[in-house]
């Protein structure tokens, strides 16, 4: 138990160092934009590939529920609420953790194993400021962007199921889409994903930064990152949902 | 030179390129049975690639590689595996399984291919082979705890445990300090005497090679620039061969394996 607390403390200290370097100059602009771009591009298709089928599935199961009450016209709103508030933020973040989080852990882990991080420090450059801070900041920017993409893909999935597969009238679907949704749903989703992005970034960079043990150590860092990041933001998601939408 | 039909390994006009890089450019070679052949040459000239052709991990673009009469590139998997059961290979870093103990690593090919042996028989054989590589009593040592020299010895033990007719060595001296390197050379020489089987050694350690090998082949630029007995090659007039062996033209006295046997590292 004390070991766990010690490790959490160690992580907290690291997160603090990163946070300070994210808000104080000098900043590594180039890497920040480069990472944000790379993450967005590389995660784009995976996010769509996951949120679209989920939209299809919500449409499918939602229709099954609402058919029982003859309330099919409520389906679009259910879909949009589910997607915007919960599904897209969570799914997009899981994918970002799996794709970008694991690749940051792998990159920094490799750099640690090959002593590149040590070399940076010896050249009197702060490796946390130079390598870590831009990555975390990049995820905080990319996650909400990808969330928006996920929103659209999820809605498209719901639309496809209801209109294309099940033959509900398109106009009715679109008209009913926003009945129960508010701008706060979209904003809530964006807030969630910004926070999730920070969580994923911190955890991924932490595991990569402190990787040990050669190539196997890199594998371990990636493994630990995806699992712990997912655990953390699922837990945080609960509290955020209660606070934002409860 | 041995009769062609007697050669356990025959390469006939083997070509191999990776992208734009030609690694093997028409190499023909018959490895003589029961002798130790060293394949030397500067780094990156395709020595390891040649070795992987022999065991069938790589297939040539053109030409033929046959081992014990089987064409390794075209034969079905069953036959390739049958050939592999008759040979052993020592990889550069030993390629041992970290999750097994030392003894379990050596026992692995026995367990897989000799179901007729009982556990006691396997253990006895492993101990026998451990003694041959001068690591008695290390059966239960966890593999990650082995030193570089010990990993090579254990890898070698695993390669000979099934009693193969052919053993291949991929740079047995790489990554070892001079003392350990000498010890490995001595071990190879000693096993050569004891087992009397065909050895093929890929190396760029000239001095050690000369003391161990009966025949030497030199690869340069993808081609075979020298091939013959140890004496023939070391006295060759070929400019590239002379350049490569140049620093060692004054040959040291032949190694006495007994005197070189230091406590194993």
């Amino acid at each position, binding site marked *: 138990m004390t070991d766990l607390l010690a490790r959490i403390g160690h992580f907290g200290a690291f997160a603090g160092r990163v946070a300070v370097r994210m808000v104080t100059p000098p900043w590594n602009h180039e890497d920040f934009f480069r990472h944000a771009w790379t993450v967005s591009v590389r995660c784009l298709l*995976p996010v769509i590939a996951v949120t679209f*089928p989920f939209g299809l*599935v919500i449409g499918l199961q939602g229709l099954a529920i609402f058919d029982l009450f003859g309330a099919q016209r409520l389906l679009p709103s259910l879909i949009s609420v589910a997607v915007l508030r*919960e599904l897209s933020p969570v799914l997009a973040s899981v994918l970002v953790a*799996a794709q970008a989080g694991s690749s940051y852990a792998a990159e920094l882990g490799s750099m640690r194993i090959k002593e590149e991080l040590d070399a940076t420090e010896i050249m009197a450059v702060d490796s946390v400021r130079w390598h870590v801070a831009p990555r975390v900041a990049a995820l905080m920017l990319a996650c909400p962007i990808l969330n928006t993409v996920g929103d659209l893909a999820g809605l498209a999935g719901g639309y496809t199921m209801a209109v294309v597969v099940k033959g509900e009238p398109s106009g009715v679907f679109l008209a009913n889409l926003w009945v129960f949704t508010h701008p706060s749903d979209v904003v809530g989703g964006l807030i969630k994903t910004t926070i999730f992005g920070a969580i994923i970034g911190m955890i991924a960079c932490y595991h990569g930064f402190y990787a040990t043990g050669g190539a196997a150590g890199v594998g371990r860092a990636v493994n630990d990152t995806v699992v712990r990041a997912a655990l953390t933001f699922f837990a945080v998601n609960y509290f955020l*949902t209660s606070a934002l939408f409860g | 030179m041995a009769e062609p039909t007697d050669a356990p390994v025959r390469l006939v006009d083997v070509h191999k390129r990776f992208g734009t890089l030609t690694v093997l450019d028409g190499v023909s070679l018959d490895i003589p049975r029961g002798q130790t052949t060293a394949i030397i040459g500067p780094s990156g000239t395709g020595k390891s690639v040649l070795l992987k052709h022999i*065991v069938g991990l790589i297939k040539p673009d053109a030409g033929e590689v046959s081992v014990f009469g089987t064409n390794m590139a075209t034969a079905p998997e069953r036959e390739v595996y049958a050939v592999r059961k008759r040979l052993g290979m020592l990889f550069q870093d030993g390629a041992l399984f970290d999750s097994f103990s030392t003894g379990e690593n050596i026992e692995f090919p026995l367990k897989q291919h000799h179901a007729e042996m009982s556990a006691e028989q396997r253990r006895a054989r492993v101990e026998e082979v451990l003694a041959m590589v001068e690591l008695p009593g290390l059966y239960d040592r966890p593999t990650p705890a082995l030193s570089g020299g010990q990993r090579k010895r254990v890898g070698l033990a695993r390669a000979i445990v099934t009693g193969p007719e052919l053993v291949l060595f991929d740079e047995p001296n790489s990554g070892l300090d001079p003392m350990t390197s000498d010890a490995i050379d001595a071990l190879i020489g000693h096993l050569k005497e004891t087992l009397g089987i065909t050895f093929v050694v890929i190396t760029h350690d000239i001095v050690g090679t000369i003391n161990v090998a009966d025949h030497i082949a030199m690869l340069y630029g993808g081609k075979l620039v020298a091939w013959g007995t140890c004496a023939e090659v070391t006295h060759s007039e070929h400019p590239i061969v002379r350049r490569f062996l140049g620093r060692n033209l004054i040959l040291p006295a032949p190694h006495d394996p007994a005197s070189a046997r230091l406590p194993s590292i």
Partner: protein
Amino acid sequence: MSALAWVGGLAYFAWDWFKVAVTRRPPAGQTLVEAYRIGVQSLPVLLTISVFVGTNLALQGYNAFVPLGGQRLVGMFVAMAGVRELAPLIAAAMIAAKAGTEMASQIAVMRTREQIDALEVMAVNPYWYLVTPRLYAILAVMPALSLIAVFVTVCASYCVAVYQLGLNGPTFLEYARTSTHLRDILTGELKALVFAVIICFVSCYCGFRSEKGPEGVGKATNQAVVLSCILCVSFNYLVSQVLYG
């Protein structure tokens, strides 16, 4: 590498494994070890995530149904969404993240250290030796884990519904019970088996195809998780469409 070529390669890999392994017994003793590792290692993660999925199901369901005056239906919503769709998929995602990445990284490390070449040279088929125990292990363990995920999700939803949102417990359970049929549970188990196969083959394939060095290991592990998730979600839709469409 184009997506189609990759999927083709994966199918070919699965077929290669099938040819060599289906008529032979798996390597002795390893299946149980793997099953234990996969099951025990994934369990804490699975439980935790299931709890939080359950909590949010209840919260969002409640929010969705309140404007309709249908709070009582939250139990039904949780049962249908959780049991039919979310729980098996969450179980799959967590197994992919934990066990899948381990398979990929172990095999990738072996490739880097020439251990797979060594297996081949010792005339042991690496697909048979490395994939078979992992596949049988994950097939054995996944249905149980999926069932646990379902159970924990519903329990967590119940707790939130009753203790945080103040709904009526028995009503919740009544609606949940009547909306859940045996068919739904079995569908979930079937999905779990499909996901298990996907995760195992994808992760092992990524490991076998990895490049050398620590970067290769990292990349392979990365690919394994992402592609497992994408394929599982896609198959999830297909299975649901067929069985519920």
